[in-house]
């Protein structure tokens, strides 16, 4: 159980049976009056942002959240399947829930799946993932429009800009937080 004085940015709470994270927090106290805790909260399932004002007498349930190590298996249309590496249980995330992460999901990739109770609601990728380039146009020397980089497509269908020397079949490391090329993988 949390008290109002525990409220701060980043704290995860549960109310109306849903998990919320505090994304903005302001303490205020009108003269001689009671403390007010004005929060912007993001629903961790729907992403909807709400404003709520709490008072010093209010108490809160911590959100029932757990992160579990899982392996990416495959996707079927808009459903992405993962397997718990401990107990081999499988879970499914929708394409919306996977979001940008779908650009980096390669077979057997180990990820952290966020569970609310038993329900999977989010995914955290490793910071760096190695992807194989499946399509790359040859570099045209002196092409001043494209500068010193060119677009390639990876095995996941993700398109990004890389240095001109990257060719089809090359393995590259990509930063999943920025989506940018980091280096060529030396094998």
């Amino acid at each position, binding site marked *: 159980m949390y008290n109002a*004085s525990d409220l701060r940015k980043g704290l995860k709470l549960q109310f109306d049976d849903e998990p919320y994270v505090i994304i903005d927090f*302001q*303490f*205020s*106290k*009108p*003269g*001689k*009056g*009671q*403390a*007010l805790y*004005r929060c912007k909260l993001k629903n961790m399932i729907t992403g909807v942002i709400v404003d709520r*004002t709490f*008072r*010093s*007498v209010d108490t809160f349930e911590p959100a029932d959240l757990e992160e579990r190590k899982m392996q990416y298996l495959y996707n079927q249309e808009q459903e992405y399947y993962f397997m718990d590496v401990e107990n081999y249980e499988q879970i499914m995330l929708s394409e919306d829930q996977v979001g940008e992460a779908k650009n980096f999901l390669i077979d057997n990739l180990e990820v952290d799946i966020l569970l609310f109770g038993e329900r999977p609601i989010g995914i955290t990728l490793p910071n760096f993932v190695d992807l194989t380039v499946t399509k790359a146009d040859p570099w045209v020397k002196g092409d001043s429009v494209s500068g010193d980089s060119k677009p390639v497509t990876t095995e996941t269908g993700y398109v990004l800009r890389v240095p001109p020397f990257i060719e089809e079949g090359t393995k590259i490391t990509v930063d999943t937080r920025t989506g940018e090329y980091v280096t060529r993988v030396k094998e």
Partner: protein
Amino acid sequence: MSPASRNNATGADPERLLARKSLLQLRARVLQALRVFFTKRGYLEVETPYLIPAPAPELHIDAVAAGGAFLHTSPELCMKRLLSAGYPRIFQIAKCFREGERGGLHLPEFTLLEWYRAGFDYTDLMKECEELIRFVAEYLGHGEVLTYQGREVKLERPWERLTLGAAFERYAHISVEEALESGRFDEILALEIEPHLGSPKPVFLYDYPAPLAALSRLKPGEDGVAERFELYLGGGLELANAFTELTDAREQEERFLREREKRASLGKKTYPLPERFLEDLPRMPPSAGIALGVDRLVMFFGDTGRIDDVVTFTPEEL
């Protein structure tokens, strides 16, 4: 732990401390200005103890316990004992301590200017407050019009005077009576009313409902209203709280007991009654007193919205 690793842990690196220098210089000049103003007017500067056996029991103000006593939440009680003893004009610039108060405008350790004057009531103090802040502005080299956080503040007298009732009528979706009954007074004051207060002119919000009067006199001939005001500047910056002081010791003791009961019913710490203050109170002349947030005054003249910018160290940096 080496000094370097301690710095890293708190983030209070020398550059950050030095970046506050111009605001700390401003702070020093504001303190000088305050002392010049009061000394010129025949006020005696006093220092009362910070460590006291019994703070005034107020529902929403929590004292920090220290060494079997409490750090004062305001120098109010000791200053009133001086008034009772025959000091008619006194001022103090004191560090005060309140538990759990931390935000953009709040520090658990902050600086209050308090002054008391025998023979004054709260309307006299409104005028003296105007004179004080105009004096500080002039001392700092400002004209009559300032900008605070993008909003204009005209210091030309007289400043606006607005009763609580009128403020609720003007800005809130319910009346002050309805707000009190539903227990939403503070919420509506903070969210619906305060942001409108103090621009383009500073405003005295006055005549508070009697239950919110703590240590102030009830207004003669007007039911349920206390002679209390708050000063707001620049769109929601609450700067000062003032009363025509209650001098009836029995009434004061009853209020303290009521506040203590309310604290207990909310599961809050209760404090011993300030007995000596109550013993001295019958000798206190009719007077008025005011507490003004010095950190916030520096924020106003330094045009910053964060109290962290006007102190040497925040609690997180210690």
